[in-house]
């Protein structure tokens, strides 16, 4: 960010560009001077204070936003920071815009981000590459802020790719572990597949609108005609699918757990993976224009929610459960935006963002809790080797339980409100099948999360003798407590009813919710739906209790295992999708590349070149015998030539 001062009388307050700039500068500082800052806690303190100041600036921006008057649509702060690319009619500036949606995202990124930075100070205490770690973390925060602040497709894309990079860097932070390095690469490449779709979508948008600025593009989005109406949102969605780990591009996220746990909490739960939801919500105009695209979003969301939940039920790795859970919860969000686009329902959109917020709180909490557990058990991640930890890790345990109840949707915790908003609006807009799938996913969610809690914190300890669990330092549990508080109350605070602050806040963007008479499909009123949802959660909890905590659970598990062992291992492996992709894409791709490089390029093309050279050489071999070295032969050749020439002259003269 070379020129940061807002140029030429825009409405953009000068401090807005500083929000992403601070973490970026922090990253540069930390990475360049990692040796001198790397000692002690300085790196963490620098990084945390940098992101903390971004948080403060965000609060300023939000305050600024809230005190604005005028039409709701005009309550934004926007403007360019500096001119970036200008050539041949294309004019892309680093334009930023703060509106309600951005404000929400900003608060999450900086708020949760700060907490996780602080937590990392404790978590990474003993790592010798702390400065690098915090540098990457700061870079991520800056990139994510750029992403959500963008008021332009290309700037969004910049943030989009940069967060992917940071994800790569942080997943393979412990690069000397081959798995970590491979996982990072996989994340980047799968994301890039989505990015290519996104990029083509951007090209298409530019081709049709001649600009990439959000305001103008959205204003004219309805001008589109023909297949392009569907093509643009679908291509954008491809990007979202990659970034937000939806089926079929979700395979990178479980592997991404190779990274440090705070990274999983920040990037792979709270912020980056929700960028896809944010993007779809931001570009919802396109999705509303195309029924096909909107239906695709909702369907993929619902399918992912269920699919990932089934896999999560069978994972033994504490983080992989959470990873699949994240995929599943993101599916809920996509379901909501999809429904919002399908039915032009502001409530559904808002529900998606609402769930995004609450999910950020409780999933970050769960991840950090898991991190704390791992910290206590010296890096153990297998839940089968845990148990009864509530006694030794009380603070971690109780905050984890808050997160658990929140994700289950037990009232009055936050997940209850947000998940219900999704389920209810799906049902009420008449998407019964999708509602059914989502409800099934919710049931499974309750099951696997309860299973996790029971396995980790209750029952008997199964850890080996020489491990002595100890509660994490308060620099780690502090953020846990804060997040637990947020996970508990944010639902009530933000979205107790459809008139809650989050719904009101987003009205300028998605439209005003009209309290029309709900045409319930089976005549179930809203209260009934809510009760069904809670009942499902309780049912899931009960099932988990029966299998994992109650007496005789072990026998029941063994029986099930015996009966379904084949299916279980199939599901546990994520439906063998990794192997399938390997056989379907990776292997053929490598084969093609090998054939191209070693058969075609070397044999055919270079063979032709060398063959030509050799054949010229061969023919020269024959011709050179003419040069015998015998002077008299040469003279004769000369004379013959002269005679021929003379004959020609004579012939021509006549």
């Amino acid at each position, binding site marked *: 960010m070379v020129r940061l001062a807002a140029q030429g009388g825009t409405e953009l307050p000068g401090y807005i560009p500083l929000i992403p700039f601070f973490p970026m500068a922090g990253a540069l500082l930390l990475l360049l001077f990692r040796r001198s800052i790397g000692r002690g806690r300085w790196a963490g303190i620098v990084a945390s204070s940098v992101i903390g100041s971004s948080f403060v600036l965000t609060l300023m921006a939000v305050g600024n936003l809230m005190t604005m008057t005028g039409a709701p649509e005009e309550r934004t702060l926007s403007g360019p920071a500096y001119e970036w690319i200008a050539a041949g009619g294309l004019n892309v500036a680093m334009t930023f815009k703060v509106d309600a949606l951005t404000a929400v995202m900003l608060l999450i990124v900086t708020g949760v981000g700060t907490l996780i930075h602080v937590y990392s100070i404790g978590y990474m205490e003993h790592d010798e590459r702390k400065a690098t770690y915090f540098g990457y973390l700061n870079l991520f925060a800056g990139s994510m802020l750029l992403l959500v602040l963008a008021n332009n497709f290309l700037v969004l894309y910049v943030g989009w790719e940069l967060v992917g990079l940071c994800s790569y860097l942080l997943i393979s932070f412990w690069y000397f572990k081959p798995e970590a390095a491979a996982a990072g690469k996989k994340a980047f490449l799968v994301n890039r597949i989505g990015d290519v779709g996104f990029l083509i979508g951007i090209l298409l948008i530019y081709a049709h609108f001649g600009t990439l600025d959000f305001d103008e593009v959205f204003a004219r989005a309805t001008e589109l005609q023909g297949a392009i109406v569907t093509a643009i949102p679908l291509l954008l969605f491809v990007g979202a699918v990659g970034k937000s780990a939806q089926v079929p591009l979700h395979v990178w996220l479980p592997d991404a757990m190779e990274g440090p746990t705070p990274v999983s909490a920040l990037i792979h739960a709270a912020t980056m993976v929700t960028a896809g939801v944010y993007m779809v919500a931001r570009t919802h105009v396109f999705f509303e224009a195309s029924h096909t695209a909107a239906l695709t979003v909702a369907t993929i969301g619902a399918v992912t929610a269920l699919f990932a939940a089934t896999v999560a039920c069978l994972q033994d790795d504490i983080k992989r459960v959470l990873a699949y859970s994240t995929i599943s919860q993101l599916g809920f969000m996509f379901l909501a935006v999809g429904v919002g686009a399908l039915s032009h329902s502001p409530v559904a959109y808002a529900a998606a963002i609402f769930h995004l917020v609450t999910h950020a709180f409780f999933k970050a909490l769960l991840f950090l809790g898991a991190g704390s557990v791992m910290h206590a058990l010296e890096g153990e991640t297998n839940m089968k080797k845990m148990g009864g930890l509530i006694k030794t890790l009380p603070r971690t345990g109780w905050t984890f339980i808050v997160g658990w109840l929140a994700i289950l949707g037990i009232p009055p915790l936050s997940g209850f409100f947000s998940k219900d908003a999704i389920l209810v609006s799906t049902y009420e807009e008449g998407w019964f099948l999708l509602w059914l799938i989502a409800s099934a996913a919710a049931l499974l969610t309750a099951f696997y999360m309860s299973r996790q809690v029971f396995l980790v914190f209750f029952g008997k300890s199964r850890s080996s003798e020489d491990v002595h669990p100890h509660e994490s330092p308060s620099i780690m549990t502090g953020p846990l407590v804060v997040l637990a508080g947020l996970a508990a109350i944010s639902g009530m605070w933000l979205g107790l009813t459809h008139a809650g602050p989050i719904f009101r806040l987003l009205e300028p963007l998605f439209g005003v919710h009209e309290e029309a008479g709900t045409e319930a499909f089976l005549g179930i009123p809203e209260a009934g739906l809510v009760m069904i949802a809670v009942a499902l959660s309780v049912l899931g909890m009960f099932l988990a209790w029966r299998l994992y905590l109650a007496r005789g659970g072990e026998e029941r598990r063994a029986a099930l295992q015996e009966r379904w062992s084949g299916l279980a291992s199939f599901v546990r492996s994520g439906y063998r999708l990794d192997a399938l992709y390997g056989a379907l894409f990776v292997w053929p791709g490598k084969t093609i590349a090998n054939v191209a490089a070693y058969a075609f390029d070397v044999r055919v093309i270079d063979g032709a070149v060398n063959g030509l050279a050799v054949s010229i050489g061969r023919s020269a071999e024959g011709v050179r015998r003419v040069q015998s070295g*015998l002077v008299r032969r040469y003279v004769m050749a000369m004379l013959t030539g002269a*005679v021929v020439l003379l004959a020609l002259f*004579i012939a021509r003269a006549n």
Partner: protein
Amino acid sequence: MIDASVFLLAAALALGSGVAMVLVRNAVHAALFLVASQLALAVLFLIQGAFFIAALQIIVYAGAIMVLFVFVVMLLGVDKRESLIEPLRFQREIGVGLGVLLIVAALYLGVGTSFAVADLPDSAGPRSTEGNVEAVARELFTHWALPFEITSVLLIVAVVGTMVLAKRRLRS
């Protein structure tokens, strides 16, 4: 008439000894025939009025150069006779054939064309009263002075080059 007869005599001598030079097997004889041919040519120069050239022809060619030839022939073994077997296939045949072809062409051209400058001055000399030698000298030292000087360079180079080439290596 005298001109014509002198011409015929000299031309016959030049051609005859030229052919003989090609045909004799002994190198010394060949050299002698060449001298004869060159003397005859000098006569042909003379009757065309090129006195200076005629003199040069005798002094430089028939004199100096041919002496050098004979000298080398003697040096390199005078007694050697070229064998009559031609090792290069068809070399002799084709050579003679080409020669015949050329002669035919020359006769064809010589008989078939006329330059239509029939009445040339028979012992021509330049138009002025100056003698031929003076005229050539004037021309040579005025208009052609620079090329003339350059020939001296050429000759020096040739002399030096010859010494380098022919010098025996003194190393044991």
